[in-house]
């Protein structure tokens, strides 16, 4: 106790600033001696990616923006080049040399993910023939390695003479892997190892064997999370690149369906697939997609959401200029129209380009419904979009500026409901909108175990307490709730987000200038949209500029009558079906002018 009191007194009277010293602070490692101290060998590949502009150099001279960009580009390219410096692109003849290079390149033994398994190929009475398999633990199916590579080579093979000690013989006779490839470049070996294949190196061979052994854990194909439908297929893309492309190909069984695969990223490669129908999709569109993707010069692309911002025409716009879908049936249908689909790594969504505004409001269910119900739900969606965008702004405008247009009874009801509210309408609306946005965001982030809480809290705060406390009027609760409901009916999540944000702009316009402000903003935004393009296609096509095949825009066109593909895509084959799609029908034949319609 005495020690305790003494210690406390001592601390009180002693100036000790060690309290200010952190255990660790992250600084530049230019003068770091720790690595040498702990015995890490410096790697030839280790590169400092820190470019000059990132260093805290205060003695900088001002430079022009062009010079700055040029310098940044040069420094970045130098860093990337340096990262690949010293790499010889051939495969070592000697297995020990190969192993040394692998260890150095993959930072072994610190890096525990990379597995090198050495073995000896079964040989009768001669000098042993050594080999090794290299793979990434966690990415491969170990059964394939055990039963399709190691067992045949180690147990079942009985090579007798030298001429058979060549890789082609191993591929043809010994390794029963379902998909194999002989490679001669070191970079290909690295790429395949990191992609989940197993690479077999054999002593005295200047090539390597790639055996497809991908087998990582992933979610199985399940129901859509964002694009639910009542009529239509119930499967969605998953976190597996090949499963996703397979889901589309399963539906669109055409020999002309092409899947090009490109790799994007300097630090780590991400597979990007471009899918289109050869002989149908406009080759200029495919070329443009290819160009935009291959021109991406970044270290790493994680997901489709990142890639789309690199390839969009105007990524700073709120409105999306690509269509993102998780539904394979939608991708298949749009490919058959002449669009291009892009898959990014293991992202569970596909990007479709180009896109027009109207497509963002369509769902795959529309075509499965009969024409009148299809048109009806589309009309509901359009009304909902306008409601989500304009209703709070219109409410403010009417109550503040145009109350004369309301019938007297309704006006009195509104005035009565607002009697107890101390705030102006715009503050009231902003408060409620903020609360709704909080609930939306919290609903996504909240752990699923306590998920139901959000409903109770939200309903209590917004529905009851706020009104009882006289913070907001009951009518406004209806307005905000209707707006929120309407915004949920927009099928595209990206468009829905855009509407959420734009709503605030219209709200402010309505608060400042009433209908006049809303109308002006609306016109300006329509003009902006009319000048926007998505991969060379005007965003408001086929309405403005007007072009053919406009029967399936605002309303659901008749399936049997929409004979042409959208003209704005300029496809190589404009007809998608025979003009007489129902030749068995006497009515159709009569309408087509073929006799009296009798068979």
């Amino acid at each position: 106790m005495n020690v305790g009191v003494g210690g406390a007194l001592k601390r009180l009277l002693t100036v000790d600033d060690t309290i200010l010293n952190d255990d660790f602070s992250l600084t530049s490692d230019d003068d770091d001696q720790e690595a040498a101290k702990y015995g890490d060998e410096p790697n030839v590949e280790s590169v400092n990616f820190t470019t000059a502009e990132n260093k805290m150099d205060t003695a900088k001279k001002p430079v022009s923006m062009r010079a700055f960009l040029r310098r940044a580009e040069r420094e970045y390219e130098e860093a990337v080049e340096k990262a690949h410096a010293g790499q010889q692109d051939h495969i070592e003849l000697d297995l020990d040399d190969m192993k040394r290079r692998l260890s150095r390149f993959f930072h072994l033994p610190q890096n525990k993910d990379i597995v090198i398994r050495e073995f000896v190929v079964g040989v009768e009475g001669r000098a042993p023939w050594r080999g090794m398999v290299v793979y990434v633990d966690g990415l491969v199916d170990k059964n394939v390695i055990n039963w399709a590579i190691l067992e045949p080579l180690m147990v079942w093979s009985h090579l007798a003479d030298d001429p058979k000690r060549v890789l082609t013989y191993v591929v043809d006779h010994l390794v029963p892997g379902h998909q194999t490839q002989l490679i001669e470049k070191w970079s290909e070996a690295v790429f395949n190892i990191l992609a989940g294949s197993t690479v077999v190196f054999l002593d005295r061979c200047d090539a390597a064997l790639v055996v497809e052994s991908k087998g990582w854990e992933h979610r199985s194909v399940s129901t859509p999370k964002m694009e639910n439908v009542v009529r239509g297929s119930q499967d969605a893309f998953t976190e597996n690149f090949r499963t996703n492309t397979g889901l589309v190909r399963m539906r669109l069984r055409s020999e002309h369906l092409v899947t090009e695969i490109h790799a994007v990223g300097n630090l780590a490669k991400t597979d990007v697939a471009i899918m289109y129908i050869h002989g149908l999709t406009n080759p200029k569109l495919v070329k443009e997609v290819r160009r935009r993707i291959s021109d991406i010069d970044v270290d790493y692309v994680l997901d489709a959401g990142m890639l789309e911002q690199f390839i969009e025409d105007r990524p700073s716009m709120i409105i999306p200029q690509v269509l993102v879908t998780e539904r394979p049936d939608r991708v298949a249908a749009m490919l058959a129209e002449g669009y291009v689909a892009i898959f990014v790594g293991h992202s569970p969504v596909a990007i479709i380009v180009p896109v027009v505004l109207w497509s963002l409001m369509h769902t795959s269910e529309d075509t499965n419904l009969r024409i009148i119900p299809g048109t009806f739900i589309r009309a509901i969606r359009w009304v909902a979009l306008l409601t989500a965008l304009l209703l709070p702004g219109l409410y403010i405008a009417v109550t503040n500026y145009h109350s004369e247009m309301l019938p007297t009874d309704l006006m009195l009801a509104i005035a009565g409901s607002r009697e107890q509210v101390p705030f102006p309408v715009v503050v009231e609306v902003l408060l409620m909108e903020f609360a709704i946005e909080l609930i939306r965001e919290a609903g996504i982030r909240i752990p699923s175990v306590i998920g139901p809480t959000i409903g109770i809290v939200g309903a209590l705060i917004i529905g009851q307490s706020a009104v009882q406390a006289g913070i907001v009027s009951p009518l406004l609760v209806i307005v905000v709730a209707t707006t929120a409901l309407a915004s949920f009916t927009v099928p595209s999540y990206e468009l829905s987000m855009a509407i959420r944000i734009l709503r605030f702009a219209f709200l402010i316009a309505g608060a400042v200038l009433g209908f006049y402000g809303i109308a002006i903003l609306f016109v300006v935004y329509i003009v902006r949209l009319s000048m926007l393009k998505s991969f060379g296609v005007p965003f408001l096509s086929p309405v403005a500029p007007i072009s053919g095949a406009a029967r399936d825009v605002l309303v659901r066109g008749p399936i049997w009558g929409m004979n042409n593909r959208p003209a704005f895509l300029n496809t190589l084959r404009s007809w998608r079906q025979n003009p007489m799609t129902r030749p068995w029908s006497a009515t159709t034949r009569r309408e087509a002018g073929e006799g009296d319609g009798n068979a």
Partner: protein
Amino acid sequence: MSQSGKRNAKVPAAEMTAMLIIFVATNAFLTYPRYISFSAYEAAWMEPIFSGALTLVLFYLVEWIMRKYFQNLDIVEIAKEVFGRFGAIFIALVFALYFLCSTAAVMREFTENVVSTVLPSTPLLLVGAVFMFAVGYIAYAGIEGICRTAFIFLPILLVGLVGVCLMTVNWWRPYLLLPLWGTGPVRVFMGAMQYSSIFANVLLLTIIFPHVNNPKKMRRIGAVSIIVSTLLLVFLVLSYHMVFPAAETGKTSFALYRLARMIHMGPFFQRLESIFIFLWVTAATVRMAVTMWGSAYLLAKAFSWPTYRPAVPAIVLLSFSLGMWPQNWMDVIEFDGTYLLKWGWIVVFAVPVAVLLSGWIKRSRQRHRRVRHV
């Protein structure tokens, strides 16, 4: 999009038609009904018909000359060929000044209308500045953007205009249209000639001719746009005169607003004038964007600027300042009625036709000379 020499913006026929219809029909929201009512009384509805017919004839004449002799040329390029560079600059300046004054006058009239009807407590400068920003933005987007916007909003405008007229049906008294010839055929015809400048189709044709996607459709564009806008104006004026007596109609500046105020279709559908703000704003912004774009485009052409766009902000400021110059609204209406509407036909019809006829004569002579040499 730009006329920088890389390519001319190309506009499909439907969008061009929509733009021309809105350009003319917007006059229904402005002072045109007042002036024709004053000039013809009960026969005011005939004036748009005569003006439209005259415009149609001139439009066909101008279109024929341009198609035959001046393919892919606009009025400034033709003037350059006929009168030389300085002559072309003079002609372009006249047109640009007309467009500038027209933009300024419409801006002031429109903002005064807005302030006096729906935003009585809002400063005129704020209303005007917001409006001019929107107009400048649309003009900056170019003729493609303007025409696309016009095409999108045309159905709303048509439904709205016809709707306003039809919803006043319970106030219609057809006998107010009698006597049929109003102030007499001569005054009606003279009024039609005087106020025909609202049909700026002929002048616009000489500017936008190189921008039409398919010049062969130009005749159809002209016919449809003139006929539809004439019908709209006639319908509006007829409804207006069936609701209000002729002597009263010549004294009010905002016919459509007065009509909208009269709507009473049961206790719920009444006093819908606020909703028509959307119509007025969309129509007026498109119309003014056309005149502003025309002004910037002509200046750029006259002085061989690589693009018209940098001129747009300057013209926005200039027309805003000009519009705000007069002390009050009545001065603007006076100026508009005395100069722009009354004498506008000289700029809108006479000058373009004169330039084209001169060009036609010059080209014909050159052709004859060449034939003689051969």
